């Protein structure tokens, strides 16, 4: 029974400091590499390309020492929706009239390319979720803010508030696990006063009805926390110097170049095949 361990089922925003080879690479290189793979997976139109993409992400998880079981857990919540979308895709896909027909359901004729479209959708999202998961497990917020800071520098020179934006990203990521923990506490305290959390309602409306009483107090307590955190940030001199510096110094090395090269090659492979 772990219906209250929300943190467990929210793998996003959780940096896993397992210190793998992947963790030690330059964060900018990693961010660019993940972006390339994610974009390629998004726009690829071929089944083979998508499979290559998934394979690469799986290799990445292994290299990053992220247990497969943990990574796959992030797939479970959206899975029903993905299946629904895949089935819709099968029905709505427009295939050329000269294809062979596998089955006829009502007015709809199912062709091999319809099935392929459904499969592609499933594989595409699986790959995307795993890739984004891998990025959050291996890029810490400081690395990301550092990377973003440097990449945004040209924008900052043009008067764009890049630093504040990057800080917003960082605080948001810090808040995610905190939100999960608070939600857990509120749900537990409601359950211990008789709210029904035993049954896992099948339909969405019942599910929403179960969750709404948690959301409102969660929102209020988050506002409260945000206020406290703003004070603590002020007290630590945030915003009092025009030029923030950073603990981490970044220098691109040969291996980082290698990672970039691999990512561009696989990106190309995903798109071309």
């Amino acid at each position, binding site marked *: 029974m772990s219906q209250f361990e929300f*943190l467990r089922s929210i793998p996003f*925003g959780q940096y*896993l400091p397992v210190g793998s080879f992947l963790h030690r690479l330059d964060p900018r290189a990693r961010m660019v590499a993940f972006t390339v793979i994610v974009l390629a997976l998004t726009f690829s139109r071929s089944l083979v390309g998508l499979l290559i993409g998934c394979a690469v992400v799986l290799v990445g998880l292994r290299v990053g020492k992220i247990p497969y079981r943990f990574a796959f857990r992030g797939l479970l919540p959206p899975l029903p929706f993905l299946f629904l979308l895949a089935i819709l895709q099968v029905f709505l896909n427009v295939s050329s009239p000269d294809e062979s027909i596998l089955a006829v359901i009502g007015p709809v004729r199912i062709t091999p390319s319809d099935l392929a479209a459904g499969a592609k959708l499933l594989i595409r999202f699986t790959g995307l979720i795993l890739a984004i998961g891998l990025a959050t497990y291996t890029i810490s917020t400081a690395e990301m803010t550092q990377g973003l800071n440097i990449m945004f520098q040209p924008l900052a020179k043009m008067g764009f508030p890049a630093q504040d934006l990057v800080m917003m990203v960082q605080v948001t990521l810090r808040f995610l696990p905190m939100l999960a923990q608070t939600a857990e506490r509120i749900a537990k305290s409601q359950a211990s006063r*008789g709210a029904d959390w*035993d049954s896992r309602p099948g339909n969405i409306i019942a599910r929403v009805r179960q969750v709404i009483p948690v959301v409102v*107090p969660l929102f209020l307590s988050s506002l409260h926390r945000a206020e406290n955190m703003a004070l*603590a*940030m002020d007290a*630590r001199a945030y915003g009092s110097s025009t030029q923030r*510096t950073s603990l981490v110094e970044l220098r691109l090395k040969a291996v980082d170049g290698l990672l970039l090269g691999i990512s561009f090659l696989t990106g190309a492979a995903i798109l071309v095949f």
Partner: protein
Amino acid sequence: MTALIKLDKVTFSYTGDPKDPHPALKDITLQFHEGEFAVILGANGSGKTTLARHLNGLLLPTLGRVLVTNLDTRDRSYHGIIRQRVGMVFQHPEDQIVATTVEEDVAFGPENLGLPPSEIRQRVDAAIEAVGLEAHRHRPPHMLSSGQMQRLALAGVLAMRPRVVVFDEATTMLDPAGRRMALALMAELRASGMAVLFVTHNMEEAALADRAVVLSEGSVVFDGAPRELFTRQSLEDWGLEPPPVVELGGRLRRLFPHLPEDLLTVEELLGSLPSPQRPCEPPEHRVDGGTDQQGREWVIEVQGLNHTYMLGTPLAHQALQNASLQVAAGRAHALVGVTGSGKSTLLQHLNGILRPQEGKVRVGPFQLDDPTVSTRQVVRLAGLVMQNPESQFFEQFVGDEIAYGPRQLGCDEPLASRVRWAMEQVGLDFLAFKDRFTDTLSGGEKRKVALASILAIKPRFLLLDEPTAGLDPRSRKEILLTLRRMVSEGMEIVLSSHQMEDVAMLAHDLTAFRKGRNALQGLAAEVFWQFEAVRELGLEPPVAALVAARLRTLGWGVPSRVVTAEMLMDHLERCVEVQGEPV
């Protein structure tokens, strides 16, 4: 000594109106010096946090001015340097941590100061070492204990190399071991020449400072040595209570008139206790209920319970390991241990919101490893008041909050009369409080509402997770008296606590945990007298027990297993009659 911070006729109103008849701070003139250790005391709402926030320019005075090393806080261009010089640690450890690993969070302040990376690295390493978090430097902060988080917050401040550190109720959320650690760190800061200003309502901690400043209704009413403060009669008017040692010393003085008046620490009190004129062999004590454990009916039984959080993830950690517990009918049972020893996890099992991963849990007639037993059945039988329950309020009005339980679980009488009954149980007036907003209540009132909201279910067992944690001395006393009345009326209570004075007052039996395993168990009075074993758990035995033990070695006929001040005074009065005046 040179003045580090000068407050010059500071008045502050949250409305910003200089003519506000009830400002939060009224005409305050104070100086704090290099290297001093001062406490700022006051009841809830006395303005002590408001004062603290003036010291680094988080708040700016409505009238008057604040100078930090001669820099006026009203000039915003000084804020960077003022905040570097005046570091501040806040009450809620987790709300002040910005980054997602320990090391990165410590770097946040120096990064804001615009220091070069090599300098930041050096400072981060030094600060992490100073607070002893080396082993955790790459961990995410939400996986730290609250004591560790508070140390992390301090490290973040130390990395800025401040001249003074202001602790704003920074120990309120910590257990005794965490507090001791924090106080030891403060002592180290002082030794290295830093000034420490400590806002607190814990009077034992106040006793350690060189100087105490007391606020009442926004004005400074006392500024002097803590030793002198505790002899003041007006302490109570200011909403403060003397620390347990001083209070017990005061009571003992009625029998031992030569006891010095300005005792501050347990050691001082133990060292000045007199011997009797006619010493005797200390008697053995017969405890009510005896030590025979046969013939007892167990209403709650836990055997071989294991629990692991985040099971199946790289962040898994085991909270309970082969834990066992037996609660006898009609008795109050305490679970003790430091933070992280598994007390909360065990209590949540007794409430049915956690189910055993391995092992057996029986609560009344329910076997909790049986999936057909619904959580609602269990929560109706065993009501749980969670830790810091007020942070989980989800209704706007007090009445609705209390009515939630009976509304969900059903109620055999009109809802309003059930709510009224529950509020009476905790001493809240039904008409005055039912329509109040929950977030406008004081800390003590919120805790009472939380207690009432569980009592309204009319559970047979009452489970309490740290019922007095984070309360100021007066609210704590009120809650304890309420609970003691319920225990004496025969309510079956299981409570967790790291405050041994509370346990001594409430519980008959006790089970102690260390890192999720059973450590000690037995009658509370017997366990407490194993002083070394209790200290080894990171806890402090009750002062009354320590005094009683010392009196026995001096030849007073005080029985062993005395754990409360009342019991001690009772026995001692009889002893003085028999054994004569103290010498």
